[in-house]
Structures are given as C-alpha cells and as structure tokens.
C-alpha cells in the first residue's frame, strides 16, 4: 500500500483522533464530515480516550497478504466508551480468553510489514486487556 495513504491517517492510527458533532455532540470515529446521528456537518476534532469494551471478536487463521507473520491473531469490534465501534486487533492477551464485554485499552503496535515490497512498517492502534478498568 502507498506510504501517503498510511501517513495521512496518522492521527487516527496513532491517537484515535475522530470528530465531535457541533450540532448534536455525537462522537464520531473514524472521522467523517457528515454526522451519522444528525446528518449535519461535523469537522471538529475530538481525541478519544482509547478505552472501551469488546463488542465482538474472532481469531484469524487465514490471513490476507501482508499479515501472515502475525498468525493466528485475534480481531475485535471495540465499543469505545464515547460510543463509536472500531475494528482492531487485540494484543497482549496472554492466556486470557476473550469475552464480549471485556474492558480494553488502545495501544500502538506494528500492524503489518510489506516485506521486500517497500520495506515499510505500518504502525497503528490495537487494543489490550485493561485489567484495572471498572466493568460497566
């Protein structure tokens, strides 16, 4: 994939920067310029806390090209505390079984490597168990 394509998503990948709707206060991630809640323009940046819960999960045994080195890996839908759901890999799981409702927090990890193609390492968000978080 193109270097610029990863570069321009750096705020989202490294810092979970989304948007907040100035009209209805909905928190939006990934950013989109039309609020999905009220349909009005939303361009104000908002930094998410990175805390959330596992909403759904699965483990991948057959990876798309470029992700084979991680196999097997667990991916999840994470419901962020602020509302939106994001798709991400889980990491640092140890022997802990993954369950829906499990509290997690965002960390920055290597997502993929291009190998010999461009030699590019792509970093971004993954989520790990948040052991000290209160279960809601």
């Amino acid at each position, binding site marked *: *994939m193109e270097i610029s*394509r990863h570069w321009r*998503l750096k705020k989202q990948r490294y810092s979970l920067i989304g948007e907040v709707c100035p009209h209805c206060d909905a928190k939006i991630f*990934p950013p989109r310029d039309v609020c*999905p809640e009220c349909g009005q323009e939303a361009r104000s940046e908002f930094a998410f806390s990175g805390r959330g819960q596992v*909403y*759904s*999960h*699965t*483990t*991948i*045994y*057959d*990876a*798309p*090209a*470029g*992700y*084979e080195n*991680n196999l097997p*890996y667990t*991916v*999840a*839908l994470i419901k962020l505390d602020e509302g*939106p*759901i*994001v*798709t*991400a*890999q889980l990491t640092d799981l140890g022997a802990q079984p993954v369950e*829906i409702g499990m509290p997690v927090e965002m960390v920055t990890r290597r*997502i*993929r490597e291009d190998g010999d193609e461009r030699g590019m390492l*792509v970093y*971004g968000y993954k989520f790990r168990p948040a052991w000290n978080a209160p279960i809601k």
Partner: protein
Amino acid sequence: MREVAIVGIGQTPVDEHWDKTLRLLAGEAIFAALNDAGRDQVDGLFVGNMMSGELSRQESLGALIADWIGLPGIEAMKIEAACGSGAAAARAGMMAVASGEMDSVLVVGVEKMTDSLPSETTSGLATAADADYEAAQGLSFVAINALAMQRYLYVSGWKHTDFAPFSINSHANAVHNPYARLQEAITEEEYHKARMIAAPINLLDASPTGDGAAALLLVPREYLRPTTRGYDGRGRPVITIAGSASATDTIALHDRRDPTWLRAAELSAQRAYAQAGVGPQEIDLFELHDAFSIMSALSLEACGFAERGQGPRLGLEGQITLSGRIPICTRGGLKARGHPVGATGVYQMVEVVQQLRGEAGATQVEGARVGMAQNIGGSGATIVTHILTAL
C-alpha cells in the same frame, strides 16, 4: 417504464476452470443464454464482476467481452458492487430495458478466482470492506462475518449448531445441480466437526469460491408476440422482473447502528415487494446470499420471513427445505453451488428462472410462481433484491 422479461438464461459450472480464461467463461454463459432465448439481437452488455483488476490484471470487461462474443460496437460496461456485482449488473440491464433506452440487453456475471494464491484471493475479497479501517487492521472477509455472527449468537442466544440446517439444506439441493461446485450432501455430524476458520465460523458455514459465469437476456415484455403472451416461442412461461431494488448501508460493519441487522436487505426487499405488489407470504422460493450461514439468518429476518433474532428457527423447523414454507438455496446456494463472487447474483436469478419455468428437476418447488433472489455486496453494504414472476 416497460415491463422487462428474462427470455434467456445460461451458466457454466462453478469450478476450478484452469483451462478457461475469464472471457471464455463469460462467452460460454452468454452463448448459452442467447441459445436458450433463440435470439441474437443485442443492444447492450452489462458485466457483473468484482475482482478482475486485482486478480487477473484485466479491467474494461465490457469491451473485452463484447469483442470476444463478436459484438464489438455495442455499448458495454462493468458494474461493480463487491459480491453484489452480479445482481447490480442485472439491475442496470433491467433499467436500460425498462427505460426504453435499449431493447435487448445481455447481463453476464463472471469471476475468475482460482488463478491466484489463497492469500491474494483473501486480500482481494477484503477490498469489499473498508480498506482504511477494516482491511488495514488485517481483517479478512471471513473475519468480518465472524464478528457479525459472534455478536448475533451473544445477543440472540442461539448456538452455533443451530445454524447447521442452512448448510445441510444447501448441500442437499446442490446434489441435483450439475452446475454446482460441491454436489455432495453433508451431515449434521460433519458440520459439527468441521475445521474452525474464524470462530464461530467453521468450514461448513462458509461458501466455496470458484470460477464461473452466468448470463441473462432481457427484453421488453411487450415485444413478445401477443399470441404467445405468457409463454415464449418454446412453450415456456415468460419470466417477468416484477421487482428490482438496490439499497446501501455503511461499508464498514462497525459503523452500523446494529451490526446484526441487514438494513440494506430490509430496504431493498421492501422496495421490491412494493413494486411487485407482494409480501413475503407470496414468495414461493428465495435464493438468498448464504456466503456464510449467519447471512441466511440475517437475510430471512430483514426480508420479513422471520422475526428479528429468529432466523435460525426456520432452519430448525424445516421451513427452508423444498417442501417447507419458504424454500431457500434450492439449487445449492452459495454454500454448495459455489460463490464466484461477481457472478453469484446472476446465478441466483438464473436459478429462480429455472424454478419458475419448472426446469429445476429434482429440486423443483411445486407450483412456483413467484421467486426472489437477493445478492449481498460486502458485509451488507450493497444489497440487491429481485422478484421474478411467471405468467
């Protein structure tokens, strides 16, 4: 708007066609459809295909195939809506005929998938998802469906084993379809023991890909001679497209208000029902998009055949078999006929035509007059619903 009739159907077996190119497969299905119709006039060609650029390094399929079938000069284009490309192309062709812009339209769905390495095909299929926010996280298309199914099990309380009837039904029907990829029955025990590929989805929840092509020839119904109105020149009932609708949802599963509800299926089915003047109770058979068993349940629910969260019950109660209340996947479905992604939506429509003409052999639904086909692109981002009627 003119009523549109399907006067010709054609298909190739879904298989690993190592000896056949993409254009050759498309041509085989097209010539079969023209032969079936007994016609050769063609004004336009709409090609349903998802991944020719990614997997075959070939785009411009409209011109490629028009040239191959000996019709350079006609208007031709590719229509893409991920795994929903086939039905999207059929709908584009339907609109061309209905509007009066064209009088005779070929629709072909074609996909060539088995030239590539599995990881390349997996990457290609993942282009149906949000490239920046799903695929970039290493998600395969199977995994996205697994996330939907895991959540569905959690919310609805069904167990994985409750989905067995969907796969067993599709395989049982494919035994009698010579074009099917997997013409073999499976047992409940085999389903339970199948290798897990992305929990809770195991190998027998998932449809096999393959190479294949299917084609339709569309003309205005009013052009059929009045003396044979209701039947074509060969004494077969004329099949009319009574409902055709397409709807979209968020491309990413995570952006849905409810990731276990196919909003685009609900919208397109409602529109198609309204056009055809029918409801789910009038549908005699339903070729739904069982790329994964979870999609069978979600599709049945969104289209009004089951209450929300109750889709698996139809399978467990035997309502989806040939003699049940709403037979589904009567020719094998995606699960066993196979899923050559961009061609699948056209295969579904070919199969509904077979049923309405009474040409479905051992899997014939007795007295079928109204059939529905629903083709899903991505995890539910584009969903196209067609309702076909006989007489």
